[in-house]
């Protein structure tokens, strides 16, 4: 069993009130210790050359084999990987913790490119449920439509769907930006906590239901507001920010951003904003 004891040698983080305790004894978890040089290694990162390009046909591979192959190719320095024949398979491209140009020529099934941290992904087809779930950083562009739970629990990066998306887009979103060129289904922004969602088309019922924080911008009609979601006035900084984001996303070039509806949380949760400064930075 692991035991807790007070650490007397304070680091900078500890002096800010974080990590005042350390674990000692036997545990199955491995904790970060700056005194152990090997722990500075970040698993899954490689030096890659974006000009080094390779095609990978996954028609005869299952998702585990395909993802392992992507990892192998990154370890060989390939910085641009083009996936052929994804055929709607699930969980392709998950867990890429590296800078990488990852291109899918086709459609993905459920949980595509989930838990990624850094890659730039372009998907020429459609994606199924829970695309880019838990994404930490990077950019994902989907040329066609997306299923439900698009960008569930994303924490950072830009997630862009040029078509329409299903229900519960941005559920539990904790940061980053989700941009949808078409319509979105019911419960968009459900339990959203941080970050921003831009929907250029219409949204379904219960928009922003039970949202804690964050901002949703809607260009079309709203089916209904969810509990705790309210309309807020658009400001110049909102308009400038959306214009910049749409330009980066390469959609909505002639869209009249000033007519969008801004939706925010109408209630403030007790103690919700009492985050440490470092935590706030991570969340936003």
């Amino acid at each position: 069993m692991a035991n807790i004891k007070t650490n007397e040698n304070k680091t900078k983080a500890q002096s800010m009130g974080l990590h005042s305790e350390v674990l000692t004894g036997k545990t199955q978890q491995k904790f970060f210790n700056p005194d152990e040089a090997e722990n500075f290694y970040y698993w899954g990162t490689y030096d890659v050359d974006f000009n080094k390009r390779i095609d990978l046909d996954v028609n005869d591979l299952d998702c585990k084999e395909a993802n392992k192959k992507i990892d192998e190719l990154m370890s060989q320095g390939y910085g641009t990987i083009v996936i052929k024949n994804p055929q709607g398979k699930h969980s392709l491209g998950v867990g890429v913790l590296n800078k990488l140009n990852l291109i899918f020529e086709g459609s993905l099934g459920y949980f595509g490119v989930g838990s990624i941290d850094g890659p730039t992904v372009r998907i020429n087809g459609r994606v199924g449920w829970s695309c880019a779930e838990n994404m930490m950083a990077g950019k994902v562009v989907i040329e066609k439509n997306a299923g439900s739970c698009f960008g569930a629990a994303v924490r950072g990066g830009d997630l862009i769907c040029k078509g329409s998306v299903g229900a519960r887009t941005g559920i539990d979103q904790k940061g980053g930006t989700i941009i949808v060129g078409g319509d979105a289904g019911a419960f968009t922004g459900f339990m959203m906590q941080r970050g921003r969602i831009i929907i250029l088309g219409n949204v379904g019922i219960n928009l922003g239901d039970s949202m804690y924080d964050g901002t949703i911008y809607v260009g079309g009609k709203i089916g209904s507001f969810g509990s705790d979601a309210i309309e807020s006035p658009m400001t110049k900084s909102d308009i400038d920010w959306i214009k910049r984001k749409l330009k980066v996303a390469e959609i909505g070039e002639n869209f009249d951003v000033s007519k969008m509806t801004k939706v925010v949380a109408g209630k403030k949760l007790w103690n919700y904003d009492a985050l440490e400064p470092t935590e706030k930075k991570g969340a936003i």
Partner: protein
Amino acid sequence: MCGIAGLIHRGKSSNVGNELQAMLQALKHRGPDSTGYALYADNDGENFIMRFKVGENVGEGSSSVNEDESVYDKRKELVDSMLKNLGAKVIKEEKLTPYSYRYEMKYDEDLMEFSKKIESIESVEILSIGKSLELIKDLGDAQAVLDRYDLGKVTGTHAIGHARMATESGVDIKSAHPFWGYPFSDVSVVHNGQLTNYWNNRRVLENKGMRFMSECDSELIAVYLAEKMRNGATLEEGMKDSLSGLDGVFTYFVATKDSLGMAKDTMAAKPLVLYESDELVAMGSEEIAIRSILPHEIDTYDPFDGEVKVWQI
């Protein structure tokens, strides 16, 4: 979890047996317990096709009580006798497994009374009656059921199917999908989800004379729609009504002799991917089901919450 799949060829026939098998096999991971097919086949349209079972598959994984096969023959004789009494003329009969049969027959009277009398025989269940509907369901995956019932050669216009993971009722044929829309000929339903007002609806519908053969919540959809249509509603009207009449989470398909429909609950809690063109509509719980018959790049989408769609052949 369960997986559902459906397709409709518009203006032509195709090998729907093999196509649906490929779609359901791709969804096997969603439901390995049993597989069901509702194939709308190119029959001559003259006679009724009745598929019925006189017992359960008691093979590996079954939750049914083991029976001696000799009781099946006795029940079959009782069915033949009852058909004679009802004035039905059997044109052709096929024994498909020890417990299931396919009859071609002529019958002109009320199907509800007919079904009630046939099913009054112990352990006899009509799986379907129709002039084009061939409803087959059994334990095992899509390939096993296709092989067991020789469905690879069936051609037709449309089909729906189901790969079942048993959650709320037993691993047996009576709880497997599709469900026949008793007492309507050529109506079948498959469902993915859970219905939470099953018993309330069942009590009301039973009081109106409708019959339930299993305790599977999905059967409610078939009976619910059948009762609506019995009172004059169109299929689409019945399906739209079901969005508020049925409580829970669901995506379901319903097929009739010349149409195929889908409905999704107002929470959009259950998945569905749809491909639509002038020649073909294909849909399934996951994109891989559609890709199994359309490997080239296509445009697909998720229908929104509360959506109902119906296509004609």
